[in-house]
């Protein structure tokens, strides 16, 4: 009969305990280091603002500019996720299932934005829209340079690879045999994809979507080059941090940073819960 799997530990002596302790020490060091950064940020904001100025601080933090930036960040990242997944699902499936000449090269190209400095993406986009093809696209009514649409384009190019990779890994983990059985039971190949592979990949797709979202939320470099930092127009949260610190309001910049941190943390916890099936 089926029994629930449980984690098991072998009998270990002193060496084993020391080994485990040293491994865990690295985990602790890294986490403490990151936590120290966050604590320092919070402490700076709290001491710098002081109880007397709390009202003014809140007014700045919830000003129209920052609210607009927050809203722009959220909706552009969300649109990026939708477009990103429209690409990630078929691409992840194709790269996982089909063998074609030059597949290794294509696979590497898909990963390029993960390795490339995001700034290069912005610079490349700017250059591209100076070419004939770019100008033609803009002339056709699709304007990206210094536009909100440009934010989404930057976010998509920088973050889609994370989603594609996550979805591909999920399809890699699904035995093609299961789809084949569905085909013997009356499914067409697309039918087997929609009725079997896609529902089975649901978790991986959600994880991919969250990865795209968090990455899109955080990009800054390419936006500065491609869409600029115009308040209330192309200002997203990372832009706000840059603008606030450039005019000397470090405490506001840090407060926005902490807000972004909370958003990202919520997304990462969701990934863990969805991806690993933890309740």
């Amino acid at each position: 009969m089926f029994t629930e799997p449980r984690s098991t530990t072998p009998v270990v002596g002193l060496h084993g305990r020391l080994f485990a302790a040293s491994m865990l020490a690295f985990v602790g060091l890294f986490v403490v280091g990151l936590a120290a950064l966050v604590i320092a940020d919070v402490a700076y904001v709290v001491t710098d603002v002081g109880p007397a100025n709390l009202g003014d601080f809140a007014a700045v933090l919830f000003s129209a500019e920052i609210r607009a930036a927050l809203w722009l960040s959220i909706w552009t990242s969300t649109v990026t996720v939708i477009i990103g997944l429209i690409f990630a699902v078929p691409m992840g499936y194709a790269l996982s299932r089909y063998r074609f000449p030059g597949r290794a090269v294509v696979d590497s190209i898909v990963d390029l934005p993960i390795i490339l400095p995001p700034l290069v993406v912005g610079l490349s986009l700017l250059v591209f829209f100076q070419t004939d093809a770019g100008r033609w696209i803009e002339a056709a009514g699709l304007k990206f340079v210094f536009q909100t649409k440009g934010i989404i384009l930057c976010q998509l190019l920088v973050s889609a690879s994370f989603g594609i990779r996550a979805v591909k890994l999920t399809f890699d983990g699904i035995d093609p045999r299961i789809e084949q059985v569905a085909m013997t039971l009356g499914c067409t190949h697309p039918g087997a994809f929609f009725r079997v592979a896609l529902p089975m990949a649901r978790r991986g797709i959600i994880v991919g979507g969250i990865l795209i979202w968090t990455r899109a939320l955080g990009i800054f470099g390419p936006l500065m080059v491609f869409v600029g930092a115009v308040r209330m127009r192309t200002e997203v949260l990372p832009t706000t941090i840059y603008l606030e610190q450039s005019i000397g309001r470090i405490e506001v910049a840090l407060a926005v940073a902490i807000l972004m941190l909370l958003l990202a943390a919520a997304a990462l916890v969701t990934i863990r819960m969805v991806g690993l099936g933890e309740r």
Partner: protein
Amino acid sequence: MIRIEQLNFAVGQFALSDVELHVRPGEYFVLLGPTGSGKTLLLECICGLNRIDSGRIFIDDIDVTRLEPRNRRLGYVPQDYALFPHKTVRGNIGFGLRLRELSKNNWVAGGRAEGDAPATPGHRFALPRPPNTIHHDKSQRIDELMEMVGVTHLADRTPQRLSGGEQQRVALARALAVEPRVLLLDEPVSALDEQTREELCRGLKRLQQNTHATVVHVCHNFAEMLSVADRVGIIDRGRIIQVGAPSEIINRPVNTQVARFTQAGNLIPAGAGPGGDRLRLVCPGGIELPAEKISVPSCLGKTIAAVTAMVRPEHIRLAVDAPKDVPPGTTILSGTISSVTDFGPTVKLGVVCGELELFVSLGKREYNERSVGVRDHVHLAIASEDVHVMMS
């Protein structure tokens, strides 16, 4: 029912070559071969999961070579069962039924309309049911299937919460749900413990006998084959080497490969030459064995040739005292017991006769009656009709 003509299919370094196979309607056919012999690949070709390089596949005399898997109307149970993990037992079994409801036309492959009565035994897996209830509803059909394979109590479980045997039965019910013309089973019980394996094999055989359905069952286990097969095909390195009833494969293997696979036990290199109305075999140490001429390829019997003689352990008779009346065509060898291995119901004895070591298999009771042990002197009687000769 299934006819395969000149099938060729290569994948990497491996190839199925010139496969010819005929599975008759209503028979339980076992494709037996060692790991890596190409049996799963051949089954996938029949299912349409591999596009073959050349040759033709017929099911019910309809050429299905170019038909998609969904239109071949086969029930396929893969080795790992491949149950849909996102569906319950009920959802798994009902999967094909739902698709049939959605697109009935897809199931009329070969011009045979839905709801036609089976023309011949073995035409398809249909559950026995009273007349005029052909169009009963889906959930009732799932209930029937679950009851048939004994998984009713597991209806709402997901596959992850089933044991191996339970998964196998669900996969079987899922395949049967679409009333396939042939049921294709890829190593259906090999992942299970011995007791469950025997139990499920009996269940499969009973199911096939009750429904008169055609089954192709792939396995690498000789005992498993014996427990279910009406006929068996031996496959090795991508070729079908022999097809026949189990007794034929066991007693008249075409070559030493098949003989080894059927656990022949005693394979003796020998020189063959004419010897009156029989064939005379000279084994190592000058030991002579007679063989029926009928049991050797026709090219033999005239000249001396190098052959392999097979004598199955269960065909050798063992006696403590020298037999007095020796029938014509029987050879008596004397030797010493070198080993005794107890297999429970049977006991296998190794007997050294000069340069030969022969294995003799005795029933437990028979062995106890003889009361012999290692180093005891015994006599072995081998009849000419039990000596099978193969070209080396």
